[in-house]
């Protein structure tokens, strides 16, 4: 087990390094930091001077290495635009995105898994059909449309929820609903499909034949196997959500990681982009380990094999 973790950690580090190099390349190819800082009205000398002052005239490798060197010493650098420490910027905004992610994921899972199980028990029943219908709708609407409709309904017509910002817990209701609306369908479909599959499999039939109660069969044997794909996807989804939803954050003016990264990408503010990318990478790698462990714990067949 120890060796397993050491190997995982080395892999994790490798992923982070690879990601940071690719991200560095991508940022450089999307724009030019000196041009972004100078703006449209900067003269050629201005831009050249900015390049020199900030060390942007160095080669790609030099720039990357000096960035990486600083990071290894725990210094994520400063934004080229606000001159604020990148770590400060991220720590300011992470709670917003994290709250949103947890809220919407929980909302999505709490509704979709029980619904999926119930659907699978009576496939093609009225509940199953309406759930599937709802999930089809959920999949089919662009998120900013849903966001706008929610704003029109709860923010402007009834005025019971704040439209934008993060002043109170109520501010998170509409954005979380918007995001949950989009994670709900995939969880519902996966848990339903998994459940139907498992329920028709041999070993559930065996379990039933052994005379185990329906409850035991359903929750002890079937659910555990049926939610395997859900767990995989939910973990991925969580990491995805933590990266910040640019569309939802921008529609509801939530100052989260998504907007931070987006405006930094637009301006090629690479210390900010790199830091966000690195942190998201670390979260992903950790979540992947968690996902693997959860899968192993939930699937007795996988455990017994290892």
């Amino acid at each position, binding site marked *: 087990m120890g060796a397993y973790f050491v190997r995982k950690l080395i892999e994790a580090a490798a992923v982070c390094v690879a990601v940071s190099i690719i991200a560095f390349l991508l940022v450089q190819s999307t724009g030019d930091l000196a041009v*972004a800082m100078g*703006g449209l009205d900067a003269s050629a000398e201005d831009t050249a001077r900015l390049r020199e002052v900030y060390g942007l005239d160095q080669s790609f490798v030099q720039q990357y290495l000096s960035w990486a060197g600083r990071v290894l010493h725990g210094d994520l650098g400063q934004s080229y635009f606000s*001159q604020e420490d990148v770590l400060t910027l991220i720590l300011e905004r992470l709670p917003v995105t994290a709250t949103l992610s947890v809220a919407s994921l929980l909302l999505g899972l709490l509704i979709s898994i029980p619904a999926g199980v119930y659907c699978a028990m009576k496939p093609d029943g009225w509940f199953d059909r309406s759930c599937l219908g709802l999930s089809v709708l959920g999949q089919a609407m662009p998120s900013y449309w849903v966001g706008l409709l929610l704003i029109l309904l709860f923010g402007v017509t009834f005025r019971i929820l704040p439209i934008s910002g993060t002043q109170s817990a109520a501010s998170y209701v509409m954005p979380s609903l918007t995001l949950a609306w989009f994670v709900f369908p995939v969880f519902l479909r996966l848990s339903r499909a998994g459940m139907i599959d498992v329920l028709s499999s041999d070993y559930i039939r065996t379990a039933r034949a052994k005379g185990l109660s329906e409850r035991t069969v359903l929750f002890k044997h079937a659910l555990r196997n049926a939610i395997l794909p859900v767990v995989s996807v939910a973990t991925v989804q969580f990491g995805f959500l933590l990266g910040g939803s640019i569309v939802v954050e921008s529609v509801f003016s939530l100052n989260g990681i998504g907007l931070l990264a987006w405006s930094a990408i637009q301006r090629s503010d690479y210390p900010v982009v790199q830091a966000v990318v690195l942190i998201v990478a670390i979260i992903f790698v950790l979540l992947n380990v968690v996902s693997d462990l959860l899968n192993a714990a939930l699937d007795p067949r996988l455990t017994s094999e290892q």
Partner: protein
Amino acid sequence: MKNLKIFALSMMTLAPASLCAGQADNSLVWGYDTQLESMNPYATNKGKAQLVMRNVLEHLLYRTADGQAKPALATSWTWVDATTIDFTLREGVTFHNGEAFDADDVVYTVAQIKNPDAKISAQGDYKFIESVEKTGQYSIRMKLSKPTPSAIDRLSQTLFILPNETYEAMDAAEFGRAPVGTGPYKVTGFEAGQMVEFERNEAYYDAEWGQPQFDKLTVLTLPDPQTRLAELTSGRVDFVWGLSPDDMMQLTMSPDIETVSGDSTTVTFLSLDPNARTGDNPTQDKNVRLAMIHAIDRAVVGQVMQGAASIALESSCHPKQFGCIQDVAGYEYNVEKAKEYMAASAYPDGFEMKIAAFTENARIAEAVTGYLRKIGIEATVDQRETTAWVKDYFAGEIPVGIVPWPSNGVYDVSSITPFFFEEGQGDYIGDAEINAWFAEAGSIIDEEERLRLYALGFGKMADEVLNIPMVTKVTNYAYRSGLDFTPAADGYPLIYMAGWK
């Protein structure tokens, strides 16, 4: 549809009076479109970001709503010669933290900006200032790097005076979070990218324009235009700007919202590549350029995209700017003529064209594609991120693009010609004669001679159709009824002059 419209309207108009807190507690919330990363005015060169900072930090001069430069931290000035101005500074002014204002602060500020190692985005904006020397505790002499006719005008828009002792003791990021100035409002809270909160500076000096009115002022960034509108109608925000004519029309249906259109110094033009800077391309053919300029109904584009007050241009500069000669060869909207020119060109069967644009200028580009398709040019919009557009434009890689130019509110064409029509990275015209005329006009004081040179330059540009001047930008505002607000002629309204009636 009718029901839906009534539903939508009722949603927008059902504002209970209690929610209009702005007037009740004498505060104002401005729904802003630009993110403020820092409140350090030298960390950015975006006009819209600096506009917010003008509540806190002041220039030597300020500009009235109709565009006059008036005394602010300097009470008077005299031109000694073409490159020297003497300023008398205001006495008895203190910064928000109590530091006294005097000539040392001005000298320090200019030294900060001119420092070649300074991490300042747009030193180019200050290139016209050579140096500043202290001639007394409340007087300075400013040396200009070359004769700059627009210097006084520029000083009412740029050069935020920093408190020398305070700034020296802080780092740039710290100052960016809690700036200290002499302005009518003090910063009480700042969340980067999200909002700035101000309160009235009770110790504000007896300024020419008056005294700040609001107890509290908040600038709240709401990047999405629909969210801004929704927050205005929901009552959380009292004032928004940067609206389209369509937004304005929607809002005229709300009884408690007032709308007003103001001018700006921003113009847009369609940049072409007659000199083959990007390589061989159809716009090298004068017949193609003539066809294009006849094909586009610029007046209608301006009205639909900007508003009724938008002006269709004949030269790529704002008619309000000194030296902007609009009396040049004009081209009417005439599709038949356009088709004739196309038939006479080297491309009688048309060709494909990409029009590169960024942000909301893509809407103008899209309208242009519609007109060009009618004469056989298969035009599409190529929307880019701003930085990517700027980078490619400077690198000479955009054969056709929409260029919006705000001139940073400067009422002189020398704020536009050096960037696009003189030798430089934004020059797609590449005409030695025009370059020379404009360069000379920008560096002499004699007004008559300047006008003559600008007339020559813009005249040749129009004769040869070296680019396609489009329209002026209209700045549209909407706010809760009861606000006493005058739009600024340059498109940069000073909100601190507003108040509730």
